[in-house]
């Protein structure tokens, strides 16, 4: 199929950007969305034009680097699908597709469609881990966790850090990401020793970069991993307890 792409081009983070229209020809319908962009870049290179910068790594929906705003929908038209797993059979010959980077103050554009998500790394550094002595791997199931809790924590742990929640949020808030990262640990026994410290540090770091949740639920609708806004409530509760009980790092 042949497509018209309206792509955001921005040479540098501190220069203004704009849309440029491109024709991409001969796209097979079994190609993924990113393979279609690869094809475009080949065709641009052949013509001596500068290829479009976009990010990807795993191309199987687990690394979270590939997020794009596609026709006004984070990760495109398919629900619970990362951009790399969106396939061109979602489109028909002659379609026009608008492709934009995530837009939020916490995610400045680096170039074209690539944004800087290092603010997420700062949030992880603030509390997205447990402190544990390394050594031989402990035996499996040494610490019993009931099935319901394990399943719930696993739902939160499915977050791939793609940033679609921030991109979708009218307030540029990152509460779904932060909620998932806090809940996946705070629900489990291994997360208990640092539970309230974690909630306080993650939230305080998050607020240095991102906005405040107004409970609209756009993040949940945009999330490729179907993370629930219940985890936002979870985060809000642990933060409240951390502050009211003084159980936080100084």
């Amino acid at each position, binding site marked *: 199929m042949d497509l018209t792409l309206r792509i955001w081009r921005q040479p540098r983070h501190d220069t203004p950007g704009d849309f440029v229209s491109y024709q991409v020809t001969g796209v097979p319908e079994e190609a993924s969305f990113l393979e279609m962009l690869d094809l475009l870049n080949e065709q641009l290179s052949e013509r001596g034009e500068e290829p479009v910068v976009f990010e990807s790594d795993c191309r199987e929906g687990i690394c979270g680097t590939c997020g794009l705003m596609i026709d006004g929908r984070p990760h495109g038209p398919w629900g619970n699908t990362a951009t790399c797993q969106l396939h061109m059979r979602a489109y028909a010959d002659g379609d026009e597709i608008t492709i934009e980077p995530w*837009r939020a103050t916490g995610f400045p554009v680096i170039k074209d469609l690539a944004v800087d998500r290092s603010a997420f790394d700062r949030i992880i550094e603030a509390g997205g881990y447990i402190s544990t002595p390394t050594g031989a791997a402990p035996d499996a199931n040494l610490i019993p966790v009931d099935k319901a809790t394990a399943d719930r924590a696993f739902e939160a742990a499915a977050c791939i850090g793609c940033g679609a929640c921030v991109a979708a949020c009218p307030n540029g808030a990152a509460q779904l990401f932060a909620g998932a990262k806090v809940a996946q640990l705070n629900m489990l026994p291994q997360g208990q020793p640092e539970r309230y410290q974690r909630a306080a540090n993650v939230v305080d770091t998050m607020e240095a970069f991102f906005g405040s949740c107004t409970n609209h639920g756009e993040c949940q609708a945009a999330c490729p991993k179907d993370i629930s806004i219940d985890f936002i*409530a979870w985060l809000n509760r642990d*933060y*409240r307890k951390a502050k009211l009980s003084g159980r936080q790092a100084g």
Partner: protein
Amino acid sequence: MTTSSTPPSRPVGNQQPPKIERRGNVLTELYRSALGKKYLMAISGIVLMAYVLIHMIGNWKLFEGEASLNEYAIWLRELGEPLIPEYGAIWATRVILILAFGVHIIAAAQLTRMNQLARGSGRYAERHYAAVDFAGRTMRWTGVIVGLFVVFHLADLTWGVQWVNPQWEYLEVYDNVVASFANPVSAGIYILANAALGLHLYHGAWSLFQSMGWNSPRFNHWRRWFAIGFAVLIAVGNISMPVAVQVGLVG
């Protein structure tokens, strides 16, 4: 739709947060954070919700006639006597309401500003929202409408400002209310403002559970119904009064 984007001023590639400066006092530390402001918005919202509900139930005495409503007004002024002086309960309520309104509005303004900055100046050329509803989108507008209405409502029935309610007389509560609601412009303002309040509560009475972190698989599915029920009760219950006067059922 505009698509121009002002470039960010921060260096890209390795963003660093400013050092977190926590405050010693629990309350100032809570208020420093956006989550803390949301707790206070939710709590002040609950205080206002409780007031709005009780205020409405009391005002339904309008349907029982002049004597009933006016006696209720006197009773409110003498509530708690002799332990509490005359007007004591009324003034205590007023102080709580002023505080709740103040906190709610200031937090709303600060968070709105924070969110505008966090969203940034870059706008999507195309954006299809998938979840947000009309009530959620218009919270800031319905909030401002309710805030302005409160000023009008006080001028109309509490202070008796001449050009708002020319027939107003102190403690003639029933006559004052009927005079106000008989005026179609005034009745219209009451109806519109309470419709706005209903919308505000449709989102707010649900949102407060999320903000406070009151969340459990046992009751989560009730939160939406609670908000719908509360919003409809308040909107319909309040709007029924000006409508009753306008159609001649009361007055």
